[in-house]
């Protein structure tokens, strides 16, 4: 997919992706010459088609997790996967609010999501994961729907 600024006859750059939680997504592109921005807004069916391929519009900010598509999309059993976490001494703590938010994720995928947040915190020297940290990680890593 390419976006062309007709005024400047220049290909636009991908700027950001937005997922509103209602099954749709948006992607913003900007002309590097005149600065004009456009947003492509996809309906739920178009969004679903793209995500079914296990890809993200605009590319990925995070390497794919093992069996990411399966774990995020199959209605599976709670104990299907056991995720290895960093050594206990290196693991950040979770605030009660963050733990509560984590429980809202389906159990099948919770281990994978937890690992992503833990690694994010470890890499940045964060020793307490709070909802604010989770929000920041979602923004930094492009974790739509997590």
């Amino acid at each position, binding site marked *: 997919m390419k976006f062309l600024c007709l005024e400047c006859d220049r290909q636009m750059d991908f700027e950001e992706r937005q997922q509103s939680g209602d099954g749709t997504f948006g992607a913003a592109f900007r002309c590097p010459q005149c600065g004009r921005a456009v947003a492509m807004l996809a309906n739920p069916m178009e969004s679903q088609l793209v995500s079914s391929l296990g890809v993200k*519009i605009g590319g990925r900010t995070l390497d794919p997790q093992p069996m990411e598509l399966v774990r995020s999309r*199959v209605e599976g059993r709670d104990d299907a996967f056991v995720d290895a976490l960093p050594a206990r001494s290196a693991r950040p703590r979770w605030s009660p609010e963050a733990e509560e938010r984590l429980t809202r994720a389906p159990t099948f995928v919770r281990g994978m999501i937890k690992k992503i947040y833990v690694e994010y915190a470890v890499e940045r020297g964060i020793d307490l994961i709070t909802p604010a940290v989770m929000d920041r990680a979602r923004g930094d890593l492009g974790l739509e729907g997590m």
Partner: protein
Amino acid sequence: MSFRGYFALSGTDRSALGAQVEAQRARVRARLADVRAVVAVLSGKGGVGKSYVSAGLAVGAAREGRAVGVLDADLRSPTVARLLEAHGPLHVTDDGVHPAIGTAGTRVVSSDHLLAEGQPLTWREPEAERFVWRSTLETGALREFLSDVVWGPLDLLVIDLPPGADGVTDVAALVPDLYGAVAVTIPSDESRRSVERTLRAASNAGIRVLGIVENMAGYHCPECRMVRPLFAGDAGAQLARAFGAPLLGSIPFSPTPSPQFAETIARTVGLLP
């Protein structure tokens, strides 16, 4: 108004979808680089003993000292993990998902490890038009079973395909270096016609037919040790002639593995590199 088209723009595709799909394929290639032979086991209809043959082939090869993996691609009706007594949970490390260990040390991954007892394969997706993307999701799952599992170095990876032609074309696209396919039929003409369609799809996809296994070729009576008739027909021999492939064996229905089963498996293992 006139403006330049897609290919007239020399810049990269900013959606990065093509690059991501290519990266997915590269991950499959990298994971299978240490696998000597990938063999698909297929059938035309369900219930002919395809998974039974897949399990037998895996165990037979493993007992000869080969390192063997089994990928259960029959996502909606997984069987082979139970036959191989390979139980979850599946352990996940940075390198990927580690397979469950089954009979004779076989390494097994199946949707059976993912699904709750008695529950069908269900995707989290909008209800409307789910048929549109279901097959895309299933192919994606098969791709992840190939690329995201820590198979390790293998002499043989057996892929137990779902019945019918769809799985054949999917696996041909994902594993271009597939060593070949073994087809399982029962003697009946209905099965022959059904397997023929699947084998035609395999041939059209450039997959070599290694051989035909005819299952339920009579009933093996444990008391009189005679093989009695069960289904009319000679589908195995007909398919072997039609596709220029050997009939690897005719296995009678038997509550316990018969000598013919062992011979068929030994013959099939003998075809592997």
